[in-house]
Every structure is written in C-alpha cells, then in structure tokens.
C-alpha cells in the first residue's frame, strides 16, 4: 500500500474518515458516508469530487495541433481556443489505449498548447504512446502531480463555485474551458463532468488545492451538498450511460460498438484509422443498457443470456439510486441489441430477466424544460 500515490487532498479524505481504496495506483476515497447519499446529493444539489488522480498531459510546440490530430480519433485542428473535446486514443492496429478529454488553451504568455486528461490507469500508457509518436520539437509533459483536479457537479454546482471564480462561470459554455483564478490562485475551469449533471471541473496547483477544497466544501455543504467519492462517481456515470475504460472500453473495443461514432472522424488519417475502417463493425457485439426486475446487481463479467445461450457479457452494473432499479451495461450480439429485447443475466447461477432499454438511463432536466 505504501507505493500508492496520494493526491494533495489525501489528508482531508482520511481526516473525514472516508473509506479509502486503491484505485489505478492511487489511494482514493470510495465514500465518505454512503454511496447512495453522495449520489443523491449530486442529483439534487451539488457534490464535489477529488479527481486529482486523472492523468494530465501538456503538449506544446510548433504545429502541435496537427501533431495531436494524427494521434487521436477525433479531429483536433478545427478546435477553437478554449474548446474541450472528448476523443479516443488507439494504436496503429486500432486497439484502444484510452478515452480522453482534449483542451485547446493559451497560457498567460500568449502561447498555445493542448491539455489531455486521461484515465488514471492509462496515464503512463498514453504518455509513452504520445512520446513514441510525437516529433522531437513537440514537448510532452506529465503535469498530473503538479496539479489537483476537483469536479463540482449538480444542479447547484455553478452557484457553489461562482463566488470563488474570477470568470463568470455561468457564461462558460458546455465543453469550454477558461484560464482564470479561483480564490486568486491560477486555475483552469471547464464546463465538463462525468455525472450527467451540469457542473465544472477545476484545475489548481497542488499547493492551492487544500485551500480551494476547504472553501468549496463550506459552500457546498451550505447548499445541501456533499463531498463524494469514487463509488458515487461510478453510479452517477453509469446512470448517465457514460462508458468507463476497463469496463465498456477495452483494447479490443471498436468505438462504433460502444456508441462512440461521434468521437471518430474517419475522413482524415490518424494512427489506427485504417484498422478502424477495415473492421467488420456490423457483426460486432453492441453496447446496450439493461434494466432488471430484481434488486440484485448485474456485475462486470456476468453472462447475458438469450433462451439459455450466452449472448454477451455485463460490463458495469449497479442498483440505480435515482431510478431505484437494477441497471447494467453490457455487450450483446447485434440482432439482440434492439430496445425492448427480453434477455436474462446470469446472477451467480440464477438467471434473472433483463430488458434492453435506451441509453442513457438518466437524463437531467434542462433548465426551462417541462417535467
């Protein structure tokens, strides 16, 4: 355990009595009190998460936009300054290495650069892959441990962060980022998240993390919110139908199988584009949402059955705190992927009925929309 990395907020988590778990090489809070309570705080008010374990790579140099464009599935060269894009990284055989967020930014010196936020478990892999394929005049830096990253998510998230952020966050559009100040300390704030709610993610220097977290916590608790751990982060993203690398996405997943066609621009060459084009996508299993009638949870690796035959596997499952139903995602043969198809999941030797339902399981109500 001593080899596990600590985020700058680790002492706070421990002081709160959080249940700490090893996660992708980090010692992280699974929950402070209850996963369900933390989940509900995010859906109804606001929750704050320490996501400093996420990998953060900075790319700089002449023609960095074209260089990065060749290494990711989604077009980069047409990104605007301050824009954030979801993308995938694969090797030349089309094997997925990670799913990432790309930020196109300009620093205080008027110097353009890109920030790539990668999954904690894939940070080194993505770094090495980029290093191997980038020209020498592009600089690649792993800034993960110099910065902390805090997600503030929920219908009251903007209200919570607004007083602390120099930039008027309500004017920040979805999937946009801005270099600004939080409590007077240099920060990057983006209108992004992994919960299905509105909110922001804040990057601050490791030295400022504790001060920013404390101030935010005061505000969040005053609004009826909570600090939330990785447990709630997982149940929230699952309800929102968002894939997680290591579950819905693996080296052998074709992005089209996972409903990620939007994140792949095949009209330009990139590393792995030929392999992705050549794949016989139509015959591959499809990612579906499943709703079970039992309260039991269909967990990763459980078999999906149709008329007693194994037709796929569960990749993630939970008891949805919002829907009060057992939900899961998994891959099934294309012929069985239609909404309404009746399947079964083998729950430790007992098959239980499961229906294919649309993804996501949960849609937040946008402001002004009727119930």
């Amino acid at each position, binding site marked *: 355990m001593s080899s596990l990395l600590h985020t700058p907020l680790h002492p706070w988590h421990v002081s709160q009595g959080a249940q700490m778990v090893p996660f992708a090489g980090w010692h992280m809070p699974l*929950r402070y009190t*209850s996963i369900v309570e933390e989940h509900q705080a995010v859906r109804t008010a606001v929750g704050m998460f320490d996501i400093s374990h996420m990998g953060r790579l900075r790319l700089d140099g002449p023609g960095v936009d074209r260089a990065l464009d060749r290494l990711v599935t989604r077009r980069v060269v047409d990104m605007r300054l301050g824009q954030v894009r979801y993308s995938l990284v694969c090797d030349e055989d089309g094997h997925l290495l990670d799913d990432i967020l790309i930020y196109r930014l300009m620093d205080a010196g008027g110097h353009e650069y890109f920030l790539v936020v990668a999954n904690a478990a894939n940070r080194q892999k993505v770094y090495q892959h980029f290093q191997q394929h980038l020209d020498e005049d592009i600089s690649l830096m792993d800034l993960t441990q110099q910065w902390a990253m805090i997600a503030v998510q929920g219908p009251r998230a903007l209200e919570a962060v607004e007083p602390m952020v120099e930039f008027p966050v309500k004017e920040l559009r979805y999937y946009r980022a801005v270099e600004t100040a939080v409590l007077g300390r240099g920060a990057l704030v983006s209108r992004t998240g992994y919960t299905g709610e509105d909110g922001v993610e804040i990057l601050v220097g490791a030295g400022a993390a504790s001060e920013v977290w404390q101030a935010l916590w005061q505000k969040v608790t005053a609004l009826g919110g909570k600090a939330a751990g990785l*447990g709630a982060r997982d149940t929230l993203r699952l309800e929102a139908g968002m894939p997680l690398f290591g579950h819905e996405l693996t080296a052998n997943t074709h992005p089209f199988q996972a409903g990620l066609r939007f994140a792949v621009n095949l009209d330009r060459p990139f590393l792995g584009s030929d392999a992705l084009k050549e794949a016989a996508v139509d015959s591959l299993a499809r990612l579906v949402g499943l709703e079970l009638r*039992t309260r039991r949870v269909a*967990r990763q690796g459980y078999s999906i059955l149709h008329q007693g035959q194994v037709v796929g596997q569960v990749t993630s499952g939970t*008891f949805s*705190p919002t829907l009060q139903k057992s939900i899961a995602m998994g891959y099934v043969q294309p012929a069985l992927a239609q909404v309404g198809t009746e399947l079964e999941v083998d729950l430790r030797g007992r098959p239980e009925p499961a229906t294919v339902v649309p993804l996501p399981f949960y849609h937040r109500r946008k402001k002004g929309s009727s119930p």
Partner: protein
Amino acid sequence: MNPEQLRFTDTHEWVHLETTPEGQTLATVGLTDFAIEQLNDLVYIQLPEVGQQVRRGEAFGEVESVKAVSDLYSPLDGEVEEVNTSLTQDLDPLSQDPFGAGWLIKVRPSNPAQVEELMDYQAYRKMCQEG
C-alpha cells in the same frame, strides 16, 4: 441483543443460543454492525427457506450492496427453524438494528457445542480493528 454476549465468526456473522420453554436449543444468527458498515448501501438479501439444512462455514444466503455481494455463512450445523422474511421487503432493520430486529435466521443446531469454537465479543472486535 447485547453484542457482548454473542459469539462471532471470522466472516462477521453473530450467533446467540437460547433454550426455548420446550427445552430445545435455538440459535439466532445475524450479521454484525461492522460487516454492515463495510458493505453499506444494502440493496438485496437472499435468505434460506424454513426446513433447509445449514452447515457450519457454508453459505446459507447472500447480502448485496451497491458495491459488492457477500455470502452469508452459517456458524453452526442445523436446520432453519425461522427466517426473518420481512428483510426481503425492507432492509432498514438490518442496517439500523443488526443485533436485534435485523436478525437473519433461527437455527435448530445439531451440535450446539460448535458455538464454543467461535470468537467472543472481545476477540471479534480485536479482529475488526486489526482489519
């Protein structure tokens, strides 16, 4: 039930032996507060039927939380005499009163002396602290 008077398995079940007015020995089995705090966010429990045989160290049911599923292990050999079926509708008594209203099953033990091999309260607490 006063937890200090119970016996414990290393898989976090507790057992309480009593003698019924008819002179029979009856063992009440439950899950400890420690196990329930560790599991947290309970969503489902599966319990055996009355009349089912249970064996020491073997699973008689399972309890499931948002994060994990755990088998329930019998502390004794015997036959299930009574089942707390209300828990399958409402798990709150299990999290709020694990040593009382949250009991799981009552067993007619075939060898009540097996209880002597289980941990007492102090030994169990020590095990939990040492993790």
